[in-house]
């Protein structure tokens, strides 16, 4: 059954992302990864669902929380770990670290660590796509907090004004760092797109990659103008770093447990068991590749400035 195959394929992808990040957690105390990491654990479903229907020629712009999209979009795992390890074989030769992933060969156009700052890039890429007659979808991925930045509005307005083929994907995990939505936003994100005449879709079950894929695909089927998709999701780990932080008091692990109850990667233990060994093998290989890769050459320091 193709539905089932889809489920399995996406499950595999999501699990792979989770296991990659869990390996990062394991490795982190060893200080081999000296880079701030913003983990996507809990949010994999959004990335996998969104990217499922995208082609390599479709472009996606992300944020510092970029691991899941890098991998879901098809970024190479070896050069991912090598990048985190600061090696010459990293996708950016050790210059990007975790926060600035990119893989232009599969349409992953870069991540910015300045919140909201890559949203206009997607709009600009869509402008280019239209002007140059490229058959591309362009996607901007950002968090709920990013909608507080002025440039978010400037980007929506321009995209709507010129009816550009850009998809705004807001991953709403309910928090910006440790602050809940209600402490920061007098508005509901769901109400903003309509102001600009941008069709809005809310995807309630962000963990359910099959649902995300389906609803996303439906929402962006008409490729003529901008679309706005809000995906409700949940970040399991601390904002940055590899620890849990339910002790900190700004959120409770009740919401975490609620989320886990919906998370296929937690619930479908049979499939986890089936896939885990091979994935772990692939990850180990990638980690080994990273570990045995050379450091950047001293002259790389001043390469690629202009």
């Amino acid at each position, binding site marked *: 059954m193709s539905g089932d195959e889809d489920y399995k394929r996406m499950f595999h992808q999501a699990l792979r992302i989770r296991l990659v990040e869990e390996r990062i957690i394991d490795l982190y105390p060893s200080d081999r990864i000296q880079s701030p990491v913003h983990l996507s654990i809990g949010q994999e479903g959004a990335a996998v669902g969104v990217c499922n229907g995208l082609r390599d020629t479709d472009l996606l712009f992300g944020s510092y929380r970029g691991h899941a999209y890098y991998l879901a979009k098809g970024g190479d795992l070896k050069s991912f770990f090598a990048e985190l390890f600061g090696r010459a074989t990293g996708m950016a030769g050790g210059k990007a670290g975790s926060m600035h992933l990119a893989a*232009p060969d599969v349409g992953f156009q870069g991540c910015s660590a300045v919140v909201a700052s890559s949203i206009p890039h997607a*709009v600009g890429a869509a402008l280019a796509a239209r002007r*140059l007659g490229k058959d591309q979808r362009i996607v901007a991925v950002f968090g709920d907090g990013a909608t507080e930045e002025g440039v978010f509005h400037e980007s929506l307005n321009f995209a709507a004004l010129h009816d550009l083929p850009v998809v705004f994907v807001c991953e709403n995990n309910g928090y910006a760092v440790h602050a809940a939505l209600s402490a920061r936003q007098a508005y509901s994100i769901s109400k903003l797109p309509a102001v600009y005449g941008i069709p809005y879709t809310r995807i309630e079950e962000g963990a359910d990659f099959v649902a995300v894929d389906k609803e996303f695909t439906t929402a962006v089927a008409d490729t003529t103008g901008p679309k706005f998709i809000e995906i409700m999701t949940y970040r399991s780990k601390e904002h940055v770093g590899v620890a849990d932080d339910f002790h900190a008091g700004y959120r409770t692990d009740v919401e975490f447990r609620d989320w886990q109850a919906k998370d296929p990667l937690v619930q479908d233990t049979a499939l986890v068991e089936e896939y885990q060994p091979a994935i772990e093998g692939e990850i180990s290989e990638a980690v080994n590749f990273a570990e045995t890769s050379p450091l950047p050459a001293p002259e790389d320091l001043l390469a690629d400035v202009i």
Partner: protein
Amino acid sequence: MTDNPSPSEPLSYAGALLETMRGALASNPHSIIMGQGVDDFKGTFGTTLGLADEFGAERVMDMPLAEEGMTGIALGATLNGLYPITTHIRADFAFLATNQIINLIAKYKYMFGGLFEVPMLIRAVVGRSWGQGAQHSQSPQSQFAHVPGLTVIMPADSQSILDMYPYIVENYRGPVISIEHRLLYDLEFNVERGDPNRLENPLTSRLIREGSDVTIVATSIMVLEARRAAEHLAKTASIECEIIDLNSPSHPDADLILSSVRKTGRLVVADTSWRPYGVAAEICRMVCENDPSALQAPAVSLGMAPAPCPTAKSLEDAYYPNLTDLTDGIARLVVGREQHGVPLADETSMRDVYKSFKGPF
């Protein structure tokens, strides 16, 4: 529209800008111009006039008021194959786009290890006179040139525009910020056409005038002032000024500057912005780190007074360095004393040069 005039024809700064903007659109089908009012009947002080009609509103795009957004959109556009030229009718408004310029555009190539290139041109116009005031008069070259990854240029005349803009649009793979000076727009300069590749590297400093007594490193409109000062001093006091048009604050020609200072032993820096952390500071660093003994006397620098720009003409006249200040500064330096006896250039003659400039639009 200016059609190819014959060699050494006079061409206004604005005319050179229009010609190169038109050329950018004509030579590269992927280039676009984006900015507030680029398509209107004033056409960015005449420098984009008629281009929307000729090339279409899709390539000469009026933009909403959203500098940060526009600049980010331009970055995204270049990443997907366009060559964007953005405009700020006052450089001060580019401060709203500082995040995109400094945190994104300057870093997009390096941060991703060379996976991307971001060829694009940002035009920012410096306002001066007619009560532009504190928020319409700033000249941010040093603030951008401080940042690796950005190429900052300041065309001082029509020739510089002809030499640089087509080269940038057609050959240069990095982001360029060009700081144009509004007071130069209406002035005519003789230009030489012909070999478009006559300069090995158009994006660096140029020797404008040879002289043995003092080296003047100047930017933008101060190059013009330096020329006038040099002529006056040669005529009235046989003081021979060597003038270097810095042209690219981010990529100055250190050899050219240092060898000139070694020759003359004296340095004057004349810039359009404030002196602290400005062009004079950077030139002084160059000298101090390489050959401080080259200076036979303390360096002199001219720039805006250490204050925001006032609007009253009387204050504004004192705010900006003028020809009198410049000739006085040079004469003191060369003669070696306050009472140098050199007749000062007449300040009122400035009016002839700058014609009568009115209003910001």
